[in-house]
């Protein structure tokens, strides 16, 4: 198999040293059978910051994202190599409880996927699975999380109503609330607004901005203006390689890698 030339990764030396590290990826490779889609990526994601993954379709953004809570385990013939630590814990160590990892590292997908249950039960589902039975506690969790995603005022009078009756934007916010209900420290978002209208997109982006001080957020997006608006750091991936990782304002004003510049200015990709 042809070895792809790994581009020189441009990453500032002081990245991640002044803040806590939420995710440390070292030499991460992802294989789908004989085909390697992610090539030896080293990445250090700061805690309680928003990091955006950008790059052309098929570059490995979502594949890399799914590594952080081992969602790739669900894909047949998918193999992950290298080391990934979440808050200092090796997520591939023997004995790691996957449900605990996925409680710690929540995920929101491009297409909102509320359960065909009530609004209340969608949010309460996760805590119940993790053993929460106290009704008052569950009420508090549901209210807190729905308020956190700015959905409470819109649904407080119909919590028993079906989640499927909500609009697309409301459903996505409900999914975020559902992810928050189990108390994660990290939230992975795979193009969370790409299926939404501009107004709903704006609300999701506002929500990300509000959540950034409480959670580490990693967002995959095709929308570079969105990445520029909501993220603190941006990672540019190309053909499975990490080309540049930098503070967002610096990457979008003075990228250190010419390939990054060519991509974000639209000269390719």
């Amino acid at each position, binding site marked *: 198999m042809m070895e792809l030339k790994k581009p020189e990764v441009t990453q500032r030396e002081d990245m991640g040293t002044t803040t806590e590290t939420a995710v440390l990826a070292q030499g991460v490779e992802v294989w789908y059978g004989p085909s390697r889609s992610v090539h030896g990526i080293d990445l250090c994601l700061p805690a309680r910051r928003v990091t955006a993954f950008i790059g052309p379709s098929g570059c490995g953004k979502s594949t890399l994202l799914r590594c952080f809570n081992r969602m790739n385990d669900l894909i047949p013939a998918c193999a992950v190599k290298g080391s990934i630590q979440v808050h200092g814990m090796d997520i591939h160590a023997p004995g790691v409880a996957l449900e605990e990892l996925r409680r710690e590292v929540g995920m929101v997908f491009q297409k909102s996927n509320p359960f065909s249950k009530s609004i209340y039960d969608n949010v309460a589902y996760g805590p119940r699975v993790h053993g929460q039975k106290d009704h008052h506690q569950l009420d508090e969790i549901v209210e807190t999380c729905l308020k956190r995603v700015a959905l409470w005022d819109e649904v407080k009078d119909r919590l028993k109503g079906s989640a499927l009756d909500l609009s697309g934007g409301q459903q996505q916010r409900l999914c975020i609330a559902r992810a928050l209900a189990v108390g994660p420290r990290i939230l992975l978002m795979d193009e969370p607004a790409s299926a939404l209208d501009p107004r709903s997109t704006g609300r999701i982006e506002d929500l990300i901005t509000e959540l950034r001080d409480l959670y580490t957020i990693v967002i995959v997006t095709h929308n570079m203006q969105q990445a520029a608006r909501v993220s603190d750091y941006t990672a540019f991936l190309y053909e499975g390689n990490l080309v540049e990782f930098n503070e967002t304002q610096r990457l*979008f*004003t003075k990228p250190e890698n010419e390939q990054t510049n060519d991509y*974000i*200015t*639209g000269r390719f990709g």
Partner: protein
Amino acid sequence: MSRHLLHALDDLKQRVADLGTTVQQAVALAVEAVLEGNTEKARQVEAGDRAIDMDEVALEEECLKVFALYQPVATDLRLMVGILKLNNDLERIGDLAVSVAGNAGYLDAAGHPELKELLAQLAVRSQSMIHQGLDCLMRRDARLALDVCASDDEVDRLYTAVRASIQQVLALPEEPRDLARVESLLRMVHTARSLERMADHATNIAEDVIYMVTGEIPRHGGHLEIRGWLDRDGEEAARTAS
């Protein structure tokens, strides 16, 4: 990349180049007017300033349109910011050309041809800086831009020399102090000051080019550091090429 953005950027570059040419011509004509005492040339400079002003406004509006429609980033963003800023500097140079031209017909009354000679030298240096500033813009040459910034010191020295010479003339006890002579000398100072300010604007243009190329803002003493970076990048490129 959007075809429209590419076309808009090319159009802006051309318009800046055209404005630069117009301003250079205005400066050259103003210098001729004041040194020759040619009031007809001075009138032409004043008449042509209106077009420069209108071009500046049109260019700024076009820049704002590009920002609003295309949200440029990285090198395109820096190009746009640079154009927006140096557009203003070019317009100011045009205004200073009018100031210089307005002194046409007054300088000979001072009766000191050596002072006019000093002014002529100052004019040559200022015009050269404007030309080089526009040249480094067209070539996106940060090193040349740094040289332009460095040459501002020489212009400042020449300006100081002109002022000192005029002060010495005024201090001479035998120097006639009639109104025409005194006004002539004051207008020489005014002309020198305008030429020196043109050079300052040329420096601003060069600094905008440095920002466009390197992404670093070179104002307030950053030149040495940027020259160091450029030298290092050049050495590295040479090593890679070899």
